[in-house]
């Protein structure tokens, strides 16, 4: 059913009504004919966050290209909208046709971070659907999910019918077509799911189970008879040939990224040991400069944006980055189009590249040394030296930047208070360096500002640190207190994450299926939007854990080397032995190089996916 009039008539009562109206430029409102498979693409956070998610943009346009399918969008309603929907009996609906979710064949969630799990439940509930997959009806839409936290989706496995593991462009259309034809054969949902589980990258959680021991440990992971034992991640083999949209939807409301987003490469082989994306998105694949220029031209024309953002896990690692940036500025600067870079590394080359795109406006530059001492940076295999940091900072100040933002983590393996002190010292030295440059320059330069942002390290699955014990609350607070006392003064700002929130993220990030009931309890008690600081209530979660007899500390402890992990139902293409070896390397402060320039370290990804690293600048030792 559609409720457009009722919705429009009532939206003036709430804040930001334009989150819920759709009708944006380039949105696709296809006709609802019976031949079309109808997919609702859901993002479990508010509109302005969801609209900035690249994966969802790709899927939306990819599916809508198909004649026999349509895809529409739905985002999590903010609390005031949820109240209005309940009061006026408006079910969750999509922004294109205003159809309620129950009218769709498939509801697909993008999993972006653990803190959005209660929003997923809320969206199911507002759609009038049962939370647990086992309680949903035959005629209810199939609930599927994929995205970056799919690599440990076990805490929500009970709510989802089917997961897609890996990069969706590779297989999503095949999956949807298969589903459509199976449904036409009038098979039951469970028969269809069994057949779909035969496809690579498809994980039907109801066909798998966990066996627990007396002490709560996992004894075994079981798959139903005849089902594959592990689900292997799917990747796009040739990124340059892969589909990429240019007719992006242009939101009216301010969103996080209001610009043409160009993904220049995928994957990163720097091997930072804490980084989930660095492991999960291997191998490295790059788009060609020609294709990127062509995509930029088309997207600018189609959207009317005045900015292009070149994104990837590490922009300067793009093997032809200087040429790319030069060609982009050459082509677009006289049209008053600005170019921005994401994820700069801490080195002089990054500053040069930033200088290239930022000839006039110099706002702020962000560096992520991650740790305060060289010893700890070696533990995490960050592969930057103290000297890199200072020369990057000096170069930034000399080129006119006065604001520098530094990212660090606390709670990394082997960290001592010495390393925490190192964060404060590094920040002070960079500030001093800036002030020295400012004193000696003839140019006008604004006051030096160094902002230090410290997050608490959360061990992530399928990384070398998946075994590591997370800091307890007292330790985190002690470190925060130390930094707050030592990063003080007019030229500094210091920000940190809520320790309770980090701890919850830690529990969910390495969680298993026993957490499903906890998430339901927290949702029932009103938990929503945990990722938004003002919405997070630790008390609710404390009660939810207690009521379900779950000790959250159990999920934060150091794991034994041979322990079976809940997430090992999936295979990301990197053997556990490689990760364990890397964990040991970390403890011994042994560095490994980027395999694009050095020898292969045996992560086995290339062989497992029958791909080679796709580097447009070629393999070179000069990097």
């Amino acid at each position, binding site marked *: 059913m559609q409720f457009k009039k009722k919705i429009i008539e009532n*939206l003036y009562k709430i804040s930001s009504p*334009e989150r819920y*109206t759709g009708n944006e*430029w380039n949105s696709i409102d296809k006709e609802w004919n019976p031949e079309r498979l109808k997919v609702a693409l859901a993002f479990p956070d508010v509109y302005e966050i969801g609209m900035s998610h690249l994966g969802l943009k790709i899927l939306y346009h990819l599916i809508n290209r198909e004649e026999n399918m349509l895809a529409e969008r739905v985002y999590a309603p903010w609390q005031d909208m949820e109240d209005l929907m309940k009061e006026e009996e408006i079910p969750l609906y999509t922004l294109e046709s205003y159809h309620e979710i129950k009218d769709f064949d498939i509801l697909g969630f993008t999993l972006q971070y653990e803190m959005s799990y209660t929003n997923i439940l809320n969206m199911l509930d507002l759609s009038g659907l049962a939370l647990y997959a086992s309680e949903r009806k035959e005629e209810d839409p199939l609930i599927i999910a994929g995205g970056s936290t799919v690599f440990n989706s076990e805490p929500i496995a009970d709510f989802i019918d089917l997961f897609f593991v890996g990069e969706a462009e590779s297989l999503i259309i095949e999956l949807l077509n298969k589903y459509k034809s199976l449904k036409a054969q009038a098979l039951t949902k469970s028969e269809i799911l069994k057949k779909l589980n035969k496809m690579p990258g498809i994980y039907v959680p109801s066909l798998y189970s966990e066996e627990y021991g007396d002490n709560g440990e996992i004894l075994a992971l079981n798959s139903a008879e005849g089902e594959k034992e592990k689900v292997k991640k799917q990747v796009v083999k040739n990124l340059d040939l892969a589909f990429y949209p240019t007719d992006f939807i242009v939101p009216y409301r301010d969103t996080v990224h209001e610009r043409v987003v160009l993904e220049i490469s995928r994957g990163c082989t720097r091997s930072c040991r804490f980084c989930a994306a660095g492991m999960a998105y291997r191998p490295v694949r790059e788009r060609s400069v020609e294709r990127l220029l062509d995509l930029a031209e088309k997207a*600018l*024309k189609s959207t*009317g*944006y005045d900015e292009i953002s070149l994104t990837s896990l590490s922009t300067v690692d793009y093997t032809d980055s200087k040429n790319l940036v030069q060609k982009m500025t050459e082509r677009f600067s006289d049209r008053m189009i600005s170019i921005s870079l994401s994820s700069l590394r801490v080195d002089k080359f990054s500053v040069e590249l930033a200088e290239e795109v930022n000839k006039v406006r110099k706002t702020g530059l962000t560096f992520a040394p991650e740790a305060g001492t060289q010893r700890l940076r070696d533990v995490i295999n960050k592969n930057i030296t103290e000297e890199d940091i200072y020369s990057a900072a000096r170069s930034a100040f000399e080129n006119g930047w006065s604001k520098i933002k530094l990212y660090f983590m606390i709670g990394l393996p082997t960290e001592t208070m010495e390393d925490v002190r190192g964060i404060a010292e590094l920040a002070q030295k960079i500030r001093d360096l800036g002030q020295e440059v400012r004193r000696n320059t003839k140019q006008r330069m604004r006051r030096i500002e160094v902002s230090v942002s410290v997050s608490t390290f959360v061990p992530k699955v399928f990384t070398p640190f998946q075994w590591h014990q997370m800091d307890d609350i007292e330790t985190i607070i002690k470190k925060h207190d130390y930094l707050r006392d030592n990063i003080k003064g007019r030229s500094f700002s210091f920000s940190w994450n809520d320790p309770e929130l980090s701890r919850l993220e830690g529990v969910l990030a390495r969680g298993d299926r026993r957490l499903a009931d906890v998430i339901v309890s927290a949702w029932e008690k009103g938990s929503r939007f945990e990722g938004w600081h003002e919405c997070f209530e630790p008390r609710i979660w404390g009660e939810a854990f207690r009521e379900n007899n779950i000790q959250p500390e159990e999920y934060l402890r150091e794991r034994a080397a041979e322990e079976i992990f809940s997430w090992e139902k999936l295979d990301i293409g990197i053997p556990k032995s490689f990760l364990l070896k890397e964990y040991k390397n970390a403890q011994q402060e042994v560095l490994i190089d980027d395999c694009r320039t050095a020898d292969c370290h045996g992560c086995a990804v290339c062989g497992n996916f029958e791909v080679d690293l796709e580097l447009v600048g070629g393999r070179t030792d000069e990097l």
Partner: protein
Amino acid sequence: MNYRIKFAKLEDLMYISHLEVIKTLRRIIRRAELPAAFSQGYNPRINLAIGPPLAVGLISQGEYFDLELEVDLEPEQLLSDLNSASPEDLKFLKAVRIPADVRSLSSLVDTAIYTINFDYTEPKTLEEEKQMLEEFMNQEEIMIIRHRRKKSDRKIDLKERIFSANIKAENKWEFAVVTGSRGNVRPEELNRALREKHPEIKEFSPLQVVREGVFVKDEENFKPPYTEKFIGS
């Protein structure tokens, strides 16, 4: 060349705010690949000046902005270029060449005309409605509490802000009210003030209101801001 451009903002875009409309206009101009003039400075932007804001949740048949182009384009061509790059419910209706030193929309425009269809719990005749309006307008003052976002409530007199009021047809009320730098009146406030006297009027819905447009008060008349008198050099 400078242009004064009239546009309508209709139902699909009724919840888009004033600032979002400005942003959208800039993007439409880029998509239409019009040779717009840019502002000077560190952060060059398309030179564009818009009239007084339209409240979020209302549709309008007559809003305006001034735009500078690097070339002289036929107004008809300019309109069709803009419309080809614009969402269906943002319609460009008229473009008029104006001199560069023209009085700005924000200093010129002072009147907004609204048509409101009130819903009643029991039907009213045209005569009854005329009676209601006459009584309403014959009050010494029409005091109402204005609720302001993030600010304290304030008491205001609607009477001095209403230039004229008529019943155009059955259930079709027309109010000409002050807008811009000299104050404004929200249709929801007219509804509320009337409902205090006549509880049979139903609660406000934005779908009952159309802003017919913004105008310039010229003695007893309301004229569009592109009238020769205001743009003649």
